[in-house]
């Protein structure tokens, strides 16, 4: 039952992501600012920006804080993990894709439910398909998530090696190496 809920949630994220994408990037609200500071993006992003101007770096998101649309007690909600990771690490992900591998892309493939053995193929795929995954300078993190997943589905070598079931099992704290019972 819980797996089903999560699956729906994941599909829901992608759906809203596509809708958000139609209106331009910035709708997902789960970026670095949201992760560090809860939801108050406008004020907090200014503070975040100010850190590079050598001012203090407050972190107003302790375990005590309740639940935002993105995190609960500092832990990213399972159904937001892929989007949150892509938003916060957008640039590192892009450059890992261009160079055909790297730590950020490896972690992202784990969130997408890829088997370890499929990683080299996944890396090469993102390098080869970079231009179709991110078709313009306006392409944002959600386009990246959607684009990579679309490519996985149309790649015979990856579509069974990177699955939502494995991603959900991981979110539920189960070892991904264990085969699923159903």
């Amino acid at each position: 039952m819980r797996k089903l809920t999560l699956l729906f949630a994941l599909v829901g994220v992608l759906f809203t992501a596509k809708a958000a994408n139609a209106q331009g990037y910035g709708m997902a609200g789960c970026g670095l600012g949201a992760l560090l500071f809860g939801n108050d993006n406008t004020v907090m992003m200014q503070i975040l920006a100010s850190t590079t101007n050598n001012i203090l770096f407050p972190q107003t998101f302790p375990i005590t804080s309740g639940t935002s649309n993105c995190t609960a007690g500092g832990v990213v909600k399972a159904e937001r993990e892929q989007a949150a990771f892509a938003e916060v690490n957008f640039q590192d992900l892009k450059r890992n894709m261009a160079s055909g591998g790297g730590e950020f892309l490896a972690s992202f493939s784990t969130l997408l439910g890829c088997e370890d053995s499929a990683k080299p193929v996944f890396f090469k795929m993102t390098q080869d398909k970079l231009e179709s995954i991110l078709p313009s300078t306006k392409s944002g993190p959600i386009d990246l998530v959607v684009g990579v997943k679309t490519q996985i589905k149309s790649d015979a070598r990856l579509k069974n090696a990177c699955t939502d079931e494995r991603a959900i099992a991981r979110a539920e704290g189960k070892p991904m190496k264990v085969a699923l019972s159903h």
Partner: protein
Amino acid sequence: MDRRGSVFVVVWAALWLAALPSRAAPGAPGPGPAVAPPTLPTLLQRARSIRLPETRDWQVLLHYRRTRFGGWKSEADGPGFFFAGEAGKTSPAAELEATLAAFFQPAVADPLNPQTMHPQCRFPARYAWLKRELAIDGPGEGGAPAAAQLIDQPCPLLDTWRTGISAEAVTLVYATAFLNSPASMYGHTFLRVSRATGEGNPLLDYVINFAADVDTRNGLVYAVRGLTGSFPGRFFVMPYYVKVQEYSNMESRDLWEYELSFSREQVQRMVLHAWETRTTYFDYFFFDENCSYELLTLLEVADPSLHLVERFGGRVVPADTIRVVLDQPGLVRHRAARPSLASTMTERKARLDWREVRAAEAWVDQPADAAPPDLTGVSAARQAHVLDAAYDYLRYREGFKSAEPSDDFKKHERRLLLARGRLGVPPQEIAARSAIDAPERGHATLRLAVGGGFSDAPGSFETLSIRGTLHDFLDPSGGYSDNAHLEMGHLRGRFDNQSRRLRLDRVDLLHIVSAEPVDRWVHSISWKAWLGAENARELGCERRDSDRRGWRCLYAGGTVGGGVAARFGPQRRLLTFALGESDAGAGPAFAAGDNFRVGVGGEGGLIGDAGPLWRFQIGARYIYYLLGETRPSFRTTVAQSFGIGRGLALRFSVETANTYAQASTELVGYF
């Protein structure tokens, strides 16, 4: 086996089997009254009889520390941490009994409401520990009414949180010092807990970070409140990738990771305890009860047999806590480095030849629609190196000032990434550079020095000095930034042999020189700040005929300055800097000018090392005073330091101040 023995075995087996159902399902309605869970009076009695409140496990869970008068006091300052109210803060026994009683509270109406969580869900580490110590899962006494029984409560919020973290192993992470933020000058430590799935993706791990819950952006307010402990400190949880972005990319700080050898159970107890701290806060003191101190208390919760906190007095420097953790036999399993964006960029650039550096610059500097730089005849792998370095440079130059990069950046970025993708070459990883040194290799932070010397007047003298923190340009550079001088709490006394008087030589409340070298790609600003007291020897107060001798030569003052620094020479081992400065001071030394002076001027320095043990520094500083005592000050220094074994060094220096000159020697020890 004799007959009596086998009868015993049969009876024992029968008894054991009879007890089984209650073991399998504690709290469930058992077949008879003999398996009901224990009642509160029984447990209180049991806890007293085995003196549970006096155990170290309980003390670390409640953050109790011995007071000067032999009592106990908890360092938790928020009242939500104690069930016994005020008494709980000072009485481990009262708190333990009140905690036990609270665990018997009836189920809450809505277990999903974070405001009304059941005590068992708010304090899962205490609950698990008490259950174990009091053997609560075992058979209880008969006949108690259901309301008096201890029943495991559902904790859905806690379960979701725990599952998200799924902690199995823990790593202590050290972020190197960041001089440009007062909160980060001494470095920072936090914990990273690795997922139970063992998939080897540290970026996806979670971080437990202790930080002041700061509500001000005013640096002065921050400093005052930080020193007096009026910020609440709390534990924060967030994904490690957020911290990597913050430190490696935004602040260009290298990270050092020390994997600890805790068992799964120990890690889980620690994580559950971190959850418990959501009910409270700890007054945050910049110098002692700071981020690193509170992390040590978490490590003690994981393994109460560790005694880490008591190794520290009034001052906890993050790098010292790394050394203390490394001192525990077998506690650190593995060490790894994660160089920052700036470190990586510098390393990549160093591997390019002159033509390749120019090509990388062209990718970044020329308009995005210009023809790409010509690299004909260069292998695809070398081109990948160039493009990787160019991307580092582009990103570093764009900076992190806004959440959304500029359109120009995006165009350049796209052009670079597509070109890199088209090469089809695998990642060109570079090894962590050797110049970023492990923090534990640095000298200890407390420094004592004894020395002596002579001057043209008044003659020979002896000196004694103590420095609280941290590092100057002549201290052994391993483990510290080569480009920074940071001292706080430095005091030097001097005994003049001729006048047989003890006098204050200098006080540095704060002395920072941040000399960040510039090169073609890195354009950083260097700066200096000083606050303290000194002798105005340039005014001739050491002369025999002066009326400003002894303590009358003193003044208190401050300096601020800014400028540039550069590295050059073999392996870039020479550092030079030039700073413009403004300087102000007041004291008896300036009696000729209303007891104060204000001026502007400049300073230059050259620092280098020749071999691991020998370091030298040459400096000159000229200040033209505009107000008050207006005689100018011209000072020079030539100093060198020789390491002579572990934690010891010998220094020789010659200093001049206008017409005054002295030569001195110091034996320096680090503790």
